[in-house]
C-alpha cells in the first residue's frame, strides 16, 4: 500500500470493502489510529503506515437497543457494544450470531466485514459486525 493513499475514514471503509481491516500507524510515536487520521493527535506528524488490525477482541461493554432510528427499527431489539481488539484498539459495532441474553462483558468476539452496494448514496460504508469468536 503506497503512501499516496490518504489516511482517512473513507479509506478505512474502502479497505474494508476489499476485505482488509487496517488502521494508520504514526511513524513517529507508533500510535495506531482507528479510524486512520491525517494528523497524529499525539505528535502532530502526518506520516503514517498502514497496519493490519487483529480481527479478534473482547467485549468491553454493550447494550440492547429497543428503540432505534427508522432505518434500524426493523432489526430491534439488537445488541451493540465496544470491542477491544487484541492490540488494544477499540471499535464499536453490532453484535450478531448470538442470543441477546447470552452476551457477556469480556466475551471473545471476531469481526465480520459487511457489504455495501456501489449504487448506494453517500456514505458507501459497509456495516461490519461482531460475532462470537
Amino acid at each position, binding site marked *: 500500500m503506497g503512501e499516496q493513499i490518504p489516511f482517512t475514514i473513507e479509506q478505512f471503509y474502502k479497505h474494508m470493502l476489499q476485505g482488509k481491516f487496517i488502521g494508520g500507524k504514526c511513524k513517529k510515536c507508533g500510535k495506531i489510529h482507528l479510524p486512520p487520521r491525517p494528523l497524529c493527535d499525539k505528535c502532530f506528524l502526518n506520516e503514517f503506515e498502514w497496519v493490519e488490525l487483529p480481527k479478534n477482541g473482547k467485549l468491553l461493554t454493550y447494550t440492547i437497543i429497543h428503540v432505534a432510528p427508522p432505518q434500524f427499527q426493523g432489526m430491534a431489539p439488537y445488541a451493540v457494544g*465496544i470491542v477491544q481488539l487484541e492490540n488494544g484498539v477499540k471499535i464499536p459495532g453490532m453484535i450478531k450470531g448470538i442470543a441477546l441474553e447470552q452476551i457477556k462483558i469480556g466475551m471473545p468476539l471476531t469481526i465480520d466485514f459487511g457489504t455495501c452496494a456501489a449504487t448506494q448514496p453517500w456514505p458507501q460504508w459497509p456495516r461490519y459486525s461482531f460475532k462470537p469468536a
Partner: protein
Amino acid sequence: MKGKPLVSIVSAGLSKFGKIEGLYARELFAEAAKEAYERCPNLNPKKDIQALFVGHMGESYEHQGHTGATAADWAGLLHIPAIRTEGACASSGAALRAGIYAVLSGLCDVVMVGGVEKMTHRTTPEVTEFLAMASDYPFEQWHGITFPGLFALMATAHMHKYGTTEKQMAMVAVKNHYHGSLNPKAHMQKEVTLETALSSRVIAWPLKLYDCSLITDGASCLILTKPELAKKYTDTPVHIVGSGQASDTIGMYEREEFTSLKAAKLAAKKAYEMANVKPEDIDVAEVHDCFTIAEIIAYEDLGFCKPGEGGHLAEKGETKLGGRIPINTSGGLKAKGHPVGATGTAQAYEIYLQLTEQAEKRQVKDAEIGLTHNVGGSGATAAVHIYRRE
C-alpha cells in the same frame, strides 16, 4: 474569601418548559427574555446589553439556523452582536462560558447569555435522529448506536465495574420527579413510584423510559455584568466564581474509560480551583441527568462521592431536598425537561433562584454556593460553573 467573582448574574429568565404548542424557538426565547427584563427594572435592555450568546443545538427541528440574530431580534436587542454557540446538549453551558469571555475581556459591560430548543412538534424518531447527530456518525450512528444507547453502554460498564443497580438508577428518576412536582415551570410536575420507573419499557437496556430525560420545548437566559457594576442593577447579584469547560473525543469508544466523563472531571477541576472551593462546600447543584446513569456518574465526576458510590448516594436519598447535597432541585432534565440548547443556562437559572432565596417550595435553606454541570453528547463537551451569593 471563597473565589473572586469573575462575573455577576443580575437577572435571569426561563420560559415555561413542556410541550408548548404553537410557539417557535424565537418566541420561547422572547418569553425568557421578558422575565429577565421584568426581574431587573434597573436594566435598560436596549441601552445596556452589548452582546448576546445563545445556545441552540439543531437547525433541523425548525428548518432554521442563524439563531444568534433571530434570538436578538425577538428579544428586542437589535442591533447588538449576537451569535449562536453549539456544543450539543451543552450549547448554552458554552454560551455562558462565551459570555464570561466577553465580560472578562473588558469588551462588554453587560451581556445576555441563554439558550433555546423547540422539539416537541417533531416525531420521536425524528428527534432521536436529530439528537444522535451529537454522536460520531461513521462509527456510532452508522452502526445503529442511538443516543440512549451510548449512555446505556456507560450504564452496563458501571454496573459491571461497581455493582450499580437498575433500582439505584430508578431512584434518581423518582427523586427528580419529586423535585419537578415542586417546580411550576417543570414539564412533568408529578411524582412517579419506583415500581413505575422500574417497570417502564426498555429503550436501550439497561435504560428504560424513566431513565431518559424528556423531549421538551423551552428557553432560558441570564444577564451577566462585571462584579463592580452588579449593584447598579440589583441588590442581590449571584456571582460566578468558577468556570471550567473541556472537550473529549466525539467517539465514546475511543475513551480510556466508560464509567466517567473525562471532560466533566477536567471542567470541574478547573472550576473548583478557580472558585477555591471543594465538593463538600457545594450546597446545591444542577447536574446533567440526560439519563439517570449520567446523574450517578456526575456525582462521582464532581467529587460528591468516590467513584462507584454514585448509586448508593441516590439510593440513600442524600441528593434529595433535605439531604446532604440536594441535586437537581428543579426536577433536572428528567422532570423539568431537556430542551437541549436551553439546558445549560436553565440550570444556572435554578441556581440563581436558589442563591437568591426565590426557589419557593424547593428552596434549599441557607444555600450559599451552587454548581452547574452541563454535558454535550456522550461527553465530548462539558461545562461546569460555580456560583456564590452576595
